[in-house]
């Protein structure tokens, strides 16, 4: 199909949409994807949105199990080589056929400069084209969970990317944008029709999609509404059909409305605090000449000073589960026995801080998003109040994720809040992304404070290639134990999902907070 033809068809479709009973779904979120580039930010919302437009080789079903997507089947031909048979007859939105070249290109792109998806490609040694419909992925070491790991590496069109000078991912850290940020050309069930960052994005169904449609939504209008009250008002007035997250204070009110249903469920995301443990002097602190966070006693003092139960009951209105681990229940490798936090104890914390040489505390800046996680800004304020009791003065910088993410990904932070859902639903992902020592090969991409323990690095590498489940779990538990003993991070809680929708909307709420439009039905 030529581009002109496809435009005409799209136009004709759009015209008929206006006349016939085309189904439009208006979705509101508290924030927007920072870009439409599927490799530029490893963040759930961005991957959820772009996941409607682009597809991986291996997808996820409604229970987060693996299903064939752009690959129809995969086999392990040797411990380090995986062979993927590609789906035939698939076309990109612009009509270009999907081939093995696109797969090789996309993996190279995702592993290359500016990509934020290196954590998923770091184990790959080579991606080879065997023929037009077959590729081989070779890993540096045996990697039994490879198909899980690549389920978020979306495939882009080689031709389109080259034509549009988008061969390299959009790098928000450096403020580099390209065509892939505003336009897209995937194979997914929806195509991007309109993109106004932070204002409005419109997705329309891609008629040539290979999969039989389960949902009936023809058009999705996605609007970020940052203010909680405004978002709720839009929901109540019927201006939108679906919103997430529901502000915790408004759950009851929305539940009481006859036209609206509220869907709540546990989320796999863990919210935690990270500390710069690498620099010899913190960038944003009153302490000069040394880095207090290098001292475990300081980290532990921070940990024990935080009144997590009060945060749970007052700030999160009980819609959170305090955690001692960097992964939550539902993630492979989660160790229930180890999920015991150090006790909240202001006195002990103050004592630790005194022992470490800061009897009067110190001053440090804290970076926080205010439109990314549930009540994120409020949680940070509560943390600041808790820390004030041990004399630590927090200069809180709570800001929109559009400015927050570039800042912390450049590691321009001393103390930060982050939330993480392991994209593979496996503890190894948390270990390699959040806890392992950062390398330029994709380890520790989100270990923004550069916490480092060589023993954990070694365990992480061995966990990656271990096939024996019992041994693997033992190693994961050992790594978590080491991390907890070091107080590498301060885990806070797993938040709960709260979505609200009109009664006539039926959808699947995934615990990773992804929202595939293709499963949404509007009666």
């Amino acid at each position, binding site marked *: 199909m030529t581009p002109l033809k496809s435009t005409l068809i799209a136009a004709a479709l759009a015209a008929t949409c206006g006349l016939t009973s085309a189904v439009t779904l208006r979705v509101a979120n508290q924030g927007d994807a920072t870009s439409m580039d599927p490799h530029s930010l490893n963040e759930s919302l961005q991957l959820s949105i772009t996941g409607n437009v682009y597809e991986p080789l291996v997808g996820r079903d409604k229970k987060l199990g693996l299903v064939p997507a752009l690959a129809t089947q995969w086999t392990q031909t040797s411990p380090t080589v995986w062979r993927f048979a590609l789906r035939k007859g698939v076309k990109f939105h612009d009509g270009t056929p999907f081939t093995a070249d696109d797969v090789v290109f996309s993996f190279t792109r995702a592993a290359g400069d500016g990509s934020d998806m290196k954590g998923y490609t770091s184990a790959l040694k080579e991606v080879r084209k065997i023929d037009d419909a077959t590729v081989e992925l070779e890993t540096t070491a045996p990697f039994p969970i490879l198909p899980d790991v690549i389920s978020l590496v979306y495939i882009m069109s080689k031709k389109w990317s080259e034509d549009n000078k988008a061969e390299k991912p959009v790098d928000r850290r450096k403020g580099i944008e390209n065509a892939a940020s505003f336009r897209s050309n995937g194979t997914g069930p929806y195509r991007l029709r309109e993109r106004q960052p932070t204002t409005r994005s419109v997705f329309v169904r891609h008629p040539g999609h290979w999969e039989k449609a389960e949902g009936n939504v023809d058009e999705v209008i996605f609007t970020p509404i940052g*203010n909680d*009250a405004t978002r*709720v008002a839009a929901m109540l007035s019927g201006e939108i059909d679906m919103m997430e997250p529901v502000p915790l*204070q*408004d759950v009851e009110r929305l539940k009481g409305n006859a036209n609206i249903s509220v869907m709540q469920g546990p989320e796999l995301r863990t919210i935690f605090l990270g500390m710069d443990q690498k620099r010899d002097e913190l960038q944003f602190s009153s302490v000069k000449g040394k880095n207090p966070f290098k001292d475990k006693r300081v980290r532990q003092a921070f940990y024990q000073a935080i009144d997590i139960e009060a945060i749970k*009951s007052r700030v999160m209105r009980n819609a959170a589960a305090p955690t001692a681990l960097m992964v939550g229940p539902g993630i492979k490798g989660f160790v229930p026995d180890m999920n015991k936090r150090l006790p909240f104890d202001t006195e002990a914390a103050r004592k630790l801080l005194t022992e470490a040489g800061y009897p009067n505390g110190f001053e440090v800046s804290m970076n926080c998003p205010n439109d990314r996680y549930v009540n994120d800004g409020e949680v940070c304020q*509560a943390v600041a*109040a808790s820390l004030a009791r041990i004399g630590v003065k927090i*200069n809180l910088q709570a800001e929109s994720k559009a400015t927050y993410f570039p800042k912390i990904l450049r590691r321009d932070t001393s103390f930060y809040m982050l939330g993480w859902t392991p994209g593979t639903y496996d503890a190894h992902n948390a270990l390699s992304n959040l806890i392992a020592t950062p390398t330029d090969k994709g380890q520790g991409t989100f270990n923004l404070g550069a916490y480092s323990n060589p023993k954990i690095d070694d365990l992480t590498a061995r966990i990656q290639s271990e096939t024996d489940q019992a041994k693997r779990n033992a190693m994961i538990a050992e790594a978590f134990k080491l991390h907890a003993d070091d107080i590498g991070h301060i885990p806070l809680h797993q938040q709960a999902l709260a979505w609200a929708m009109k009664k006539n909307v039926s959808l699947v709420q995934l615990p990773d907070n992804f929202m595939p439009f293709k499963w949404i039905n509007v009666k």
Partner: protein
Amino acid sequence: MIASARRFFDGDVWFSFRSTPVAVGAAVVALVLAFSAIFAGWVAPHNPFDLATLELSDARLPPAWIEGGSSKYLLGTDDQGRDILSALMYGARISLLVGVASVLLSVVVGVGLGLLSGFAGGKTDALIMRVCDVMLSFPSILIALLIDGVGRAMFPNAHDTLAFAVLVFAIALPGWVQYARTVRGSTLVERNKEYVQAARVTGVSSLRIMRRHVLPNVLGPVLVLATIQVATAILTEATLSFLGVGVPPTQPSLGTLIRVGNDFLFSGEWWITIFPGLMLVLIALSVNLLGDWLRDALNPRLR
């Protein structure tokens, strides 16, 4: 001193004040608010800025007279457990401080430039007035947002003092134009009067004439304008803080309190936003009424 006080109390202005109940009422309200704001440190039951004293477990308690409220927190608490009553006093202090400081700044700049413009005339006058025209063609809130944005970009890690300075500057800058215009107009009238010419003939320098002879005679309208502008500046500060670009969130002004409370409006926790809103209305209204009265009192034609 006593003589000048007597002159004041025997004078027209004081008489007009006493015989205007609205003005007396507004003054009383403004004085009480100003007192509680200035002495918030002694008067307020809690210190909402001292994070160490916040009890998160007391967050979102309703006012004392509603079931579930606590006598410890007369007007309830916000989402971080701050006592609303104390937060109001401290918040009003920040609002008043920013309001008065920015008006002072714009008065100094505006009166100075206005005098210069009116007295010097010619190219200086033309230049200053064209700058005024340009400034007037932008809504003041837009200029304030712009300066605030630039200020934040220039000092990304600005806290407390610097953030306040940027805020004061952001509100003051669009404000000076009105003073400059008013003062220029009056100066143009005054400078041709006999007493100015007499001073000039006796060889008094231009600077001294401007300062000692013209300035006192053009200050009347400035006083009125400044009083009303304090209310406007407080509202601008509240707007900026409501938009989240004002004072730091750990030191809430009235605007910040209203913004925070706005999120809880639908969930029935009305006190978090209503009380700061009422406080803002009271401050703005009383200051405006005083300004109105002052305008009438100082205007000979209305007497």
